[in-house]
């Protein structure tokens, strides 16, 4: 298990380094940074001054290592737009996005896994078909539209939940449902497929031949094996929720990472854009690592050699 962990960690670090190089290169490929910082009215002397001030006159490898050094000290520079460090900016927005993502993931898993299991057990019945229909509907419905419908029903008509903002937990309920609903169909379908596969396997027949009760066969012997592929998918979906919640954050006016990234792109606020890109990449790396570890815990074939 320790060897496995170290191997995975090594891979994760390699990926992180690659991401940092790509992220750095992209920024420098996107045009002359000094001109961009200076803006359209800057004189060539001012641009030259900016170039020196930001170290943009040095060779690229030097710039990369300086930047990497700053990065490791969590010094991400200052935002061009807000006179504030990028670190503070991101740190203040991250909890909102993480909280929203975690709630959305919880909702998605709590709906998708039981529904997937139920659909597999009741295969070819109306329950199965209903579950699959919901999945198709979920995949076909744009999330902003679903979010607006939620607002119309629960905030405007029923007045149960606040329309927008992030001051209380209640403000997160609708966004989390809207975001979670988006990930539900894929997880449900994979759970159903996994369960169908496992339920027809020889070891399930063995478990039944032992006289185990149906619930135990289902939840001890079948579900654990069926969930192995679901873990990896859930990790990717979670990453997607964290990185791709711009639409939902906009609809519900949540000041999260997605909003920050969106605004920063519109304002050519490169340090912020770069920080968000890096952050999301790191989040993906961590999630992949977590999924690997979880899979190893579920499946001894990975863990024990």
């Amino acid at each position, binding site marked *: 298990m320790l060897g496995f962990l170290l191997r995975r960690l090594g891979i994760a670090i390699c990926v992180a380094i690659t991401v940092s190089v790509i992220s750095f290169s992209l920024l420098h490929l996107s045009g002359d940074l000094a001109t961009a910082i200076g803006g359209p009215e800057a004189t060539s002397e001012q641009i030259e001054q900016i170039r020196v001030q930001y170290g943009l006159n040095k060779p690229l490898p030097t710039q990369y290592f300086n930047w990497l050094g700053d990065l490791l000290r969590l010094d991400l520079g200052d935002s061009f737009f807000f006179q504030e460090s990028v670190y503070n900016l991101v740190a203040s927005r991250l909890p909102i996005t993480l909280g929203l993502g975690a709630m959305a993931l919880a909702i998605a898993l709590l709906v998708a896994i039981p529904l997937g299991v139920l659909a597999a057990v009741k295969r070819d019945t109306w329950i199965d078909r209903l579950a699959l229909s919901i999945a198709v509907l979920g995949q076909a419905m744009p999330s902003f539209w679903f979010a607006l419908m939620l607002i119309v029903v629960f905030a405007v008509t029923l007045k149960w939940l606040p329309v927008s903002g992030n001051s209380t937990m209640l403000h997160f309920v609708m966004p989390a449902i809207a975001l979670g609903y988006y990930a539900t169909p894929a997880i449900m379908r994979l759970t159903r497929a996994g369960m169908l596969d496992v339920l027809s*396997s*020889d*070891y399930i*027949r*063995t*478990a*039944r*031949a*032992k*006289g*185990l*009760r*149906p619930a135990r066969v289902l939840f001890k*012997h079948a579900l*654990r*094996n069926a969930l192995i592929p679901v873990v990896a998918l859930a990790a990717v979906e979670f990453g997607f929720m964290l990185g791709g919640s711009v639409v939902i954050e906009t609809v519900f006016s949540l000041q999260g990472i997605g909003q920050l990234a969106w605004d920063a792109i519109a304002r050519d606020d490169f340090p912020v854009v770069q920080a968000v890109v890096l952050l999301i990449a790191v989040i993906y790396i961590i999630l992949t690592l977590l999924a690997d570890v979880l899979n190893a815990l*579920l*499946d*001894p*074939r990975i863990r*024990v050699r």
Partner: protein
Amino acid sequence: MALLHVENLRVDIPMGNSPTPDDLLHAVRGLNFEVERGEMLCIVGESGCGKSLTSLALMDLLPRKAQRTASRLTLDGIDMIGQSERHMCDLRGNRLAMIFQEPMTSLNPAYSIGDQLSEVLTRHRKVSRKDALVRAGQMLEKVGISNATERLRQYPHQLSGGLRQRVIIAMALMCEPDLIIADEPTTALDVTIQAQILRLIRDIQKELGLAVIFITHDLGLVARIADRVAVMYAGEIVETAPALQLFENPQHPYTRGLLASIPIPGQTKPGAALGSIPGLVPSLVGEQQGCAFRNRCGQAIPACAQDVPEVEQDGHMARCLFAAPAPAPIRLQERARS
């Protein structure tokens, strides 16, 4: 009184999505047999003759679409036809257990050997998990697995096929059942391992006085282990007899055809063609009548197309108009004993 009574056991499988009675596949057609305590009954037959479905029908573990009926199915006087699923769960693994054909896939990859073994006991007996593990270790030793305590902690993927089959046998023995159904337990194994596993099953059966239904297509193997043999063809038992009787005095043309197709060391000349049965197994879809073997039988007469009665004498039954079972000559019995 026999331990297991089976009367008129049938398994029907609907074909297609909206089956009419004509679309029923009559996979198992009215089996009658009994198994005594301490007896090894071998059911032999070719692929698709319904022998595996018979074993699953006895366990009530048939695939979803298959329908099981029987006029009587009792184990030690307990009716197994009208039982609720809940009561069948109490019997399975406890009073009757099963050994499967595929050791490589019959154990759950996610749980340790100890967990999967002890689970049988904690399910059916009031024992702690710890005591169940001790018992699991003893069972592993009984089936010839050394350093059992270490094996208990291992996972199926760390074990070879032969070891896994031993684990599955140990699993079947956990609650000391009355009856074990072994469905081709050696087919998926190497020849040397086959012999070991076969000896193991035979030894344990003798030692514990178990009743075993051993399902196989290998007549050579039957000759070595069976007390009694039932030959299945196209979903029916066409002949049953004490093992010796069957080999010395086969009555059904199908049994004779099977026996003729086995090479005998010292008698079969190298290069000589082995016996074979011409023709193909009939389709079992739709209503069946008459002897299913008649299209391949050299002796068939028009009356074979009518219902063929079972002819029985001294425990030797054959479903054939030409059957005349007689006790094997004493000379042959003595030869077999020596």
